[in-house]
């Protein structure tokens, strides 16, 4: 079966990956203008019926699908069908892209300039692009890049233009529309805009889904969207959103196309442009509304060095092979296909599994920089309240140890092996000098410095302990966002290590139960495919046994002599999350009446109090992401109930007994 490939016990170290090519190199050596004006003749879908943007809109408005919903809505609202059609046309107008080559050429020119200033290199796997070209020729293609930065979709189109590949149409959030000029520019480079929420709006949904499907089916252009729905502020992959994936799989499931290729793309930034911005946002400073002027303020960014970007175009995944022996397509035989129906449980679970699979495919091909490993070490030291920092050579030794471990676990680590490790470490540190302080050969996180970066008009002296804590937290969370990039490598072994740590005995069954509990607890936090507990457990066991950290027989799990260091490290990986979830439980136990809206500010206050009194070790638990995930998990597990509708809309009903017991279980050491 297709999905087994993900869990196969093939050694992750042997994973074959393509080589990278730096596309900026050529830009540095030849004319950007000539590049922007180059002859562009991409390979197109073999079944393409060429059509103009305006024809596309007509096709949507005249489609049976939309026609059906228009009639339905006009009956419900007592409007004429013409009026409803007018509404639909307006929605489409607001949504539609207007891809034109001249705008793309403009972007090609300006982005060349910008990229060369910001980045040392933009590396892409050319073999992946060749595969993509083949895929575009054969089937409708959906591009699924990871989402860590606003740069992502500009970067994608830039690369595709560079390699003479068909330019995608991109699903973008409506928030961009706020930026007048830029919004229109993006539209002309292929972006189409969707409202963030339109839950009940049938007409909107119909226009939107039909628009996407028609572009996809006709092979008009590859459709690009972000599975994670939004930029991940933590650099951990987000739980995939299923709406759009559902829409793009539908034409295959209903037999309207022979197959659809899904291409996961992993974009990794050595330094994220939005680094500190994200940290502030997670700490409760709301994200500035996207505005054109705001973007210009970002110009000061231009003076900094953001290292390199790696873009890896993964193996195209055929929807047909995903669905094989999973989905019974004849379930669509009995209702006309243009009548919108709620997807069945079977389809939903299929789409969900596919989404997880694709996000994991993105994770697998994320390039990790040595700094990511340093972030692990520095954060663990910081949490251990090691005020002196780490000696450079010790840091190097630990990083090398982690390098080898992560490689065994299948990390796609870009560690330049021809350079002495100490130089690798120091060059990494220098790129991220905003986050670390080196004095007398000792390295630590630059927690005190942060206060220095004042905003004009604010006085230094007015700083409270609370503000100081938040300032430190900005650095910590920035650093955490790098560490998080490698979490997916360690998460399964880390869950196992924690389960072993808390288990009262060596019995495999007991450890499995612990593993299962933790996995279930954290399945909103990490990408853990639903229903794959056994596979995940086996994968974790396999990795730890392979690296000699564990010995496992029929009944027992034993830690080897050399395994203690690995297990200690892995346990500490999960520690901040355990503590975070625990404190959320504690908080909820002490609350009486709480609404969902009040939750984040209140829990933040509670955590700050505990951090300041030294009862909590991990400053990173201040991350609202962690708090939201914890709440979601508790709701899922039934410890908290969200009241829907009525007077008490949004009120959280707390199951104190369960919360208490969860807190205890999480805190069991």
């Amino acid at each position, binding site marked *: 079966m297709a999905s087994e490939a993900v869990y196969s016990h093939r050694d992750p170290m042997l994973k074959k990956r393509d080589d990278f090519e730096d596309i900026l190199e050529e830009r540095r050596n030849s004319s950007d203008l000539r590049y922007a004006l180059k002859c562009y003749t991409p390979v197109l879908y073999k079944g393409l019926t060429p059509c103009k943007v305006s024809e596309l809109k007509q096709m949507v408005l005249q489609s049976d699908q939309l026609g059906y919903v228009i009639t339905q809505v006009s009956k419900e609202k007592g409007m004429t069908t013409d009026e409803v059609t007018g509404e639909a046309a307006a929605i489409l107008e607001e949504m539609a892209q207007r891809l034109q080559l001249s705008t793309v050429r403009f972007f090609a020119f300006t982005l060349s300039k910008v990229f060369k200033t910001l980045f040392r290199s933009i590396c892409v796997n050319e073999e992946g692009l060749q595969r993509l070209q083949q895929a575009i020729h054969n089937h409708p293609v959906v591009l699924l890049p990871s989402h860590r930065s606003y740069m992502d979709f500009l970067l994608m189109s830039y690369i595709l233009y560079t390699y003479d590949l068909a330019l995608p149409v991109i699903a973008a959030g409506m928030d961009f529309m706020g930026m007048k000029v830029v919004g229109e520019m993006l539209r002309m480079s292929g972006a189409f805009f969707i409202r963030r929420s339109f839950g009940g709006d049938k007409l909107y949904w119909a226009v939107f889904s039909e628009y996407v499907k028609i572009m996809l089916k006709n092979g008009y252009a590859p459709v690009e969207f972000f599975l994670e729905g939004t930029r991940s502020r933590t650099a951990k992959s987000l739980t995939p959103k299923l709406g759009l994936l559902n829409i793009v799989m539908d034409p295959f499931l209903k*037999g*309207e196309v*022979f*197959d659809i290729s899904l291409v996961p793309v992993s974009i990794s930034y050595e330094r994220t442009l939005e680094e500190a911005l994200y940290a502030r946002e997670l700490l409760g400073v709301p994200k500035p509304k996207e505005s054109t002027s705001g973007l210009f303020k970002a110009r000061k960014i231009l003076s900094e060095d953001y290292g390199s970007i790696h873009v890896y175009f993964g193996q195209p995944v055929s929807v047909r092979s995903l669905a094989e022996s999973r989905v*019974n*397509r*004849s379930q*669509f*035989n009995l209702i*006309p*296909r243009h009548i919108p129906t709620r997807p069945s449980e079977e389809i939903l679970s299929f789409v969900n599994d596919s989404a997880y699979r694709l996000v994991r495919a993105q994770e697998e091909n994320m390039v990790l920089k040595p700094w990511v490993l340093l972030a692990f070490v520095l954060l663990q030291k910081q949490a251990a309240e090691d005020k002196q920092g780490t000696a450079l050579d010790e840091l190097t030794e630990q990083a090398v140890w982690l390098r080898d471990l992560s490689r065994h676990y299948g990390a796609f680590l870009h560690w330049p092996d021809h350079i002495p490790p100490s130089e690798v470490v120091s060059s990494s540190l220098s790129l991220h000098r905003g986050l670390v302080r080196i004095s007398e050969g000792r390295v630590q996180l630059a927690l005190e410095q942060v206060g220095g970066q004042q905003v004009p008009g604010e006085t230094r002296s007015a700083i409270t302990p609370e503000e100081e804590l938040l300032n430190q937290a900005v650095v910590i969370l920035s650093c955490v966002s790098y560490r998080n990039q490698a979490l997916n490598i360690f998460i399964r072994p880390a869950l196992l290590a924690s389960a072993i740590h808390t288990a009262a005995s060596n019995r495999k069954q007991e450890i499995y139960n612990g593993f299962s509990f933790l996995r279930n607890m954290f399945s909103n936090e990490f990408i853990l495919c639903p229903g794959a507990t056994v596979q995940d457990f086996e994968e974790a066991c396999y990795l730890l046994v392979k690296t000699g950290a564990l010995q496992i027989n029929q009944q027992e799990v034993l830690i080897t002599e050399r395994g203690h260091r690995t297990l200690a490290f892995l346990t500490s990986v999960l520690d901040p999350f355990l503590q975070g979830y625990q404190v959320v439980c504690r908080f909820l136990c002490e609350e009486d009446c709480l609404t969902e809206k009040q939750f984040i500010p209140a829990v933040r206050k509670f955590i700050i109090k505990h951090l300041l009194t030294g009862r909590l070790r991990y400053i990173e638990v201040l991350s609202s992401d962690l708090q939201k995930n914890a709440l979601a998990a508790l709701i899922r597990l039934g410890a908290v109930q969200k009241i829907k509708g009525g007077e008490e809309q949004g009120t959280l009903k707390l199951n104190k007994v369960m919360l208490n017991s969860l807190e205890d279980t999480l805190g069991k050491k």
Partner: protein
Amino acid sequence: MCHTFPALTSDRSSRICSLLYKHGSSMASNSSGSDSSDRQRIAQQRLSVIAGHLQRPVEGNSGILAAECKAQGDKLDVSSERRTVPRRRQEIMKWNGWGYSDSKFLYNKKGQAEFTGKRYRLSGMIIPGLREWMESTFGANLQHKTPAAPILNSSAVQPPTLNEAFLKELKSTGIPFSHDAEDRVFRSHGHCLHEIFALREGKIGRVPDLVVWPNCHNDVVKIVELACKHNVCLMPYGGGTSVSSALECPPEETRSIVSLDTSQMNRILWIDEKNLTAHVEAGIVGQDLERLLNESGYCTGHEPDSMEFSSLGGWVATRASGMKKNIYGNIEDLVVHIKMVTPQGVIEKSCQGPRMSTGPDVHHFIMGSEGTLGVVTEVTMKIRPMPEYQKYGSVVFPNFEMGVACLREVARQRCAPASIRLMDNEQFKFGHALKPQVSSIFTSFLDGLKKFYITKFKGFDPNRLCVATLLFEGDREKVLQHEKQVYDIAAKFGGLAAGEDNGQRGYMLTFVIAYLRDLGMDYYVIGESFETSVPWDRVLDICRNVKARIVRECKDKGVQFPPLSTCRVTQTYDAGACVYFYFAFNYRGLSDPVHVYEQVEHAAREEILANGGSLSHHHGVGKLRKEWMRETISSVGMGMLKSVKDYVDPNNIFGNRNLL
């Protein structure tokens, strides 16, 4: 009127002929005098059309005489004596391929394709384009031959397991039977690829142990009684044209298997001109039925592609469909009354009312029962006066999508001609390759001009265009009017009229295409066709997806050459269409080509079902498609059929194990 039947020579025929003449005039007396000459003209025309389809030699009329069936001796037998199917089929038919022994494709010494014999329009002609088409489509090569085993090796056939008690009693009835190896092998298969492939290799599996040839209904009653008494397995055999493994002997069957060959029950017992019905013995094959009815100025209009060999009983047992169903209907529309012999006795209705509300129609237990319940012995069928006028036609469309849209519109307006078929581009090219050598430069010049007009002037892409073939039937004026209506609709979808010749050739091909598979098999090419029915909105999707699935599966299964994967829409209905797929590939380099073939066909069927297509439009289920029956008709549906089987045939005397 007799002079209008040049094919009939024997005295007996002349007598019957005059008899018919009387019938005709008595009818004519009700109407104007010109009718009888009209009728003559119609009959003449019709005969020439049939002769065009199936040109048969006039002499060599060696059909054996129907044995007297005492029970029915006093009934009026209106048919002439000439029979197409002898008891020993091997006298005129191939034992390991399709059709008549004298007709086949071959490459002559010059390397040109040629069709032998005298029976068909194509017979004796050179087909210059076929070789290149075979080479370029399949990568086939004349140097790489895979000849068939020339003669049937009787020693490869298992000795028969005979039920002596049954045999003894059978002998006493005087019904002819045989356990000759050739006779038995002939009735052990249909025309599925794997069946013919095995025969060509000289491989013979389980075959019937005995063949019996009942001459009439009462003979069948006796045989079924004896079979029940002695627990013998009966397998009815009609024309042997099954493509569903329906005639394969179940290997697990331990009883003696008796093949009940109905071919000698082939008389038209009466014609009722008042009600326009004919009562016919079920073993008659299509071409005989039409020919004999034509002699009386009638036809059934039921013309499945296999009509040369398939039998009336077979049509009923498989729910057959004919090419001209738009005018005449499918078998279920044509049948008025059925007599079937089952282990529980004879089932038939008490009257011939045109429609009844008497619970579920028991005919529908019989139609499609595929030989699992009993033997259909006699059928009353609707007949129609022969059409006055027939006209072929064809339309070229810029692409398949437009063609389907046009057919859909024709169906919407309910103005489909007798037959309308749409071939896709690959099949259009294939049809082109089968053009016989043209005799005059003028014709080839005209062809060139036509091609120029369509591709250059009208801008049709030769790799996308497709063609619909048409057949109109009826009185002359109406046909012309109808023709105009259809061409007007076609024009709305970019269709250009492309002449009668193209149309006629299209229909001629349906009769010779089965012969072509044997040629392919001589050169490493194997293939088959299969069909489905599907709602209109799914036609394009199913065509695209199934063809693509075939190509992909071939690639996955290691087929070295790109396969031929093509389709056509062969029937239109109010709510959907019948789609035919043709699939063939060059199997050089494969160790088990038949297995690969079967896997691909299996996948293609899965794809059909996933795309809203039916399990079968008219080929039936047999044993080949049994595995999908439950999901097709639901468990309750299966239970219903099962309970009928259990009641009618509790001891599984009719043990071919089809369907359920």
